[in-house]
């Protein structure tokens, strides 16, 4: 066995891993583990990791646990949605499903929200067909060491399935609580979203923390949207400030389907959101938006890749960030228009406010275009708050800290208000407000 970090966890977990008696899954895990032990954690020598170093992650020395910790002193997991609204929730603590905290409510017919573990027990064949179907075969030259690590050690996660034509009006919320362990823990949730033709749902993922321990969440999510399906996928990552968060999302968007994603990052010492979207059917559309607020020594990396594979597809991408103190943000966005993917439309924008002299933003907006009848553009800006706007507010008697906060809020509000599921907006705006006030949002 190699010296790659985390590989020793496999031996510890082996028998606790779900589906360890399924030969296909054991093979999948073994090949992913082998691929990971060859590559190790990605280093900055890899072009796609040029600006993000995982060295701090290696230094912590995370452990694993096969079973959830028994007692957690909360009676209700936090929610991003108004208490009164009817919705469906799954709650995970340190990667383990907590049925006692989850409220599934009355899901309409054709909709199924369950855990990876359950599906493994009841429908292993379905899982065999869908696991890794979107993220690619974990072959020898797998370019995604973190997803390989996830595949090798995935313990649980959520599975959301909608039958043809099922439209859910109430959002589904998945809450991940970290740091409840008695020592630093690493865990690897694996999620699957499979929407049949013309089904629609809003999915909200909320990552936050309970206890004091640092933790490492390495999440893998696969999204598959059939013809005409619509997924609104929102995520708030408000992990503890000493936590590590790496998330890989692979989405395949079918004909006339829409993948609408928005991710907000305020937490974690080091986070990386890697989203790869394949627009694989004519008329496929994707919105990939994000906002981040980081300070202290936080490091936040958003790396996206959108592939236009067939004609008549569109994408738009707007990321806005606020970076303070000695924090560092990274935005790497790549749009590829493949040969013959005519009439593709792609727009990408990265806007960043730097609030301190030590803050840093590294942006790499990339276009790779092999078809001529396309309209693609990208833009990137970085700078301080607009001095004229600040002066305007101050001249009207607004003290400087408030004026700055107002301008930052307005800068981010634009992206939050574009969210289709308005129910979540107050929660997002309030976490921006809390960040501006210099307090973590209490849960």
């Amino acid at each position, binding site marked *: 066995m190699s010296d790659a970090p985390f590989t020793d966890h496999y031996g510890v977990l082996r028998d606790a891993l779900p589906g360890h008696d399924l030969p296909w899954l054991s093979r999948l895990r073994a090949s992913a583990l082998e691929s990971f032990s060859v590559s190790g954690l990605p280093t900055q020598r890899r072009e796609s990791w040029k600006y993000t170093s995982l060295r701090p992650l290696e230094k912590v020395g995370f452990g694993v646990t096969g079973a959830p910790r028994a007692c957690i002193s909360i009676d209700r997991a936090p929610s991003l949605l108004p208490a009164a609204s009817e919705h469906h929730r799954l709650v995970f603590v340190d990667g383990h499903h907590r049925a006692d905290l989850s409220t599934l409510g009355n899901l309409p017919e054709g909709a199924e929200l369950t855990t990876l573990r359950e599906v493994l027990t009841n429908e292993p064949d379905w899982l065999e067909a869908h696991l890794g179907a979107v993220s690619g075969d974990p072959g020898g030259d797998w370019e995604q060491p973190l997803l390989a690590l996830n595949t090798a050690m995935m313990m649980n996660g959520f599975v959301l399935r909608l039958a043809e034509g099922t439209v859910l009006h109430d959002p589904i919320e998945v809450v991940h609580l970290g740091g409840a362990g008695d020592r630093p823990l690493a865990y690897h949730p694996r999620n699957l979203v499979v929407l049949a033709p013309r089904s629609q749902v809003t999915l909200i993922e909320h990552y936050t923390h309970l206890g004091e321990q640092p933790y490492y969440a390495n999440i893998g999510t696969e999204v598959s949207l059939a013809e005409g399906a619509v997924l609104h996928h929102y995520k708030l990552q408000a992990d503890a400030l000493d936590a590590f968060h790496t998330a890989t999302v692979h989405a395949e968007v079918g004909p006339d389907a829409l993948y609408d994603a928005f991710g907000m990052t305020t937490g974690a010492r080091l986070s990386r959101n890697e989203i790869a979207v394949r627009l694989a059917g004519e008329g496929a559309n994707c919105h990939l938006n994000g906002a981040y607020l980081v300070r202290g020594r936080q490091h936040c990396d958003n790396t996206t890749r959108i592939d236009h594979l067939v004609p008549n597809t569109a994408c738009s991408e707007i990321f806005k960030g606020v970076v303070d103190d000695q924090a560092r943000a990274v935005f790497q966005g790549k749009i590829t228009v493949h040969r013959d993917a005519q009439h593709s439309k792609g727009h990408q924008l990265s806007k960043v406010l730097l609030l301190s002299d030590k803050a840093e933003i590294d942006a*790499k*907006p990339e276009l790779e275009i092999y078809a001529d009848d396309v309209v693609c553009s990208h833009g990137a800006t970085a700078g301080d708050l607009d001095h004229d706007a600040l002066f305007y507010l101050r001249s009207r008697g607004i003290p400087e800290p408030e004026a700055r906060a107002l301008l930052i809020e307005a800068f981010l509000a634009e992206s939050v208000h574009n969210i289709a599921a308005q129910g979540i907006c107050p929660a997002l705006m309030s976490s921006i407000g809390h960040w501006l006030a210099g307090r973590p949002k209490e849960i």
Partner: protein
Amino acid sequence: MAATVETVERVRALDKYKYGFVTDIESETAPKGLSEDTVRFISAKKGEPEWLLEWRLKAYRHWLKMPEPGWSKVQFPPIDYQDSYYYSAPKSPTDGPKSLDEVDPKLLETYAKLGIPLNEQKLLAGVAVDAVFDSVSVATTFKKNLEEVGVIFCPISEAVKNHPELVRRYLGSVVPYADNKHACLNSAVFTDGSFVYIPKGVRCPMELSTYFRINAQNTGQFERTLIIAEEGSYVSYLEGCTAPQRDENQLHAAVVELVALDDAEIKYSTVQNWYPGDEEGKGGIYNFVTKRGACRGRNSKISWTQVETGSAITWKYPSCILQGDNSVGEFYSIAITNNRQQADTGTKMIHLGKNTRSRIIAKGIAAGRSDSTYRGLVRIGAKAAGARNFTQCDSLLIGDKCGAHTVPYIETKNRRAIVEHEATTSRISEDQLFYCRQRGMSQEDAVALVVNGFCREVMQQLPMEFAVEAQKLVGISLEGSVG
């Protein structure tokens, strides 16, 4: 050691030819292949001082250890460095020609074919030409005019002899020998190039120009250009290239270093139309160039303008290191690729000083089965308060088999800096083509007109002499791309 002795003898043997009169242009070539002996041969041939030979050898030894750069978006078979000649000089009396009359008449004939009116240029353009024909400068005009104001404009090999202190001080100070594989090779085997020194407060009275030509087959060209602009001086330098058609790929790894001190300004313009290979991509020049300018002084300015239409592969990133406060860097580029050409070009703007400004305008036009990539870096250092960058990269696609890519890197470490980047990619407008065709223009003229319009912002930056040539080039380069 025996090998060294052998080389020295070979050099002596070659020297025997030096008094012979030549009618056909034969190159005096170093033995094929690359080794320490080749480096020593070149250095001995040039009569270089010991320090320069040491520097070359250091570069050569480092080069052996360096991996080929693999990050660019170009594809080509691995280069066999041993299958090339590293030195070829047109034969001429060692004293060098004293005037145009003494220049090898056959050489002048070749120039005439290529359309450089060397004789007329004196009268017409007021351009001083330091013509480089296969590595060795053979004629320099307007030397006297330049000498009067103290400008030094000569082949770099001459500068090594006459101004060793300047060369030693600045050579490799902007592009160190270990910078990248191609620059490293150049440092080891550079044959010649231009040296320009503008003294304090002098505004160079004319545009300086060097025509590079690649002539002998299988000869890599390793030009080394060094331009130093002292306090308060100004110079505009033009570089243009053509090459006759041939089949073998040729490696060209030039290095250009610019140094601008307080209040100095350097304007460097290039038109490059080397042989791009045939329609199937066979042959053509590999153009791997390292160009970099250092704005060392306060208020200094370096401006790069390039029109890249030739070469099978272009790998070129003219850059500015903005060290001095208030210094300015500019990059204006047009890259046109057709058939199977590949261009990976862009710039780096490294902002270190306060209130430094940079502007990048890059226009890429891809036709046929070609690939055109803009790759650039804008880095705002932690101390570069008040820095400002504006970048605009536009790509135009002609045909559905070509590719256009934009890979900008933007690193900002200072909040008092403002960085803006914009890029668009679109196809050539059918409406505009139709409008032109309707008014009786041929398809090709229409394409040339539309593309010239697309590139206008860059064309305007070119000096007059180049602007006309460049506009024609745009049309010629895109011949056969539509219809």
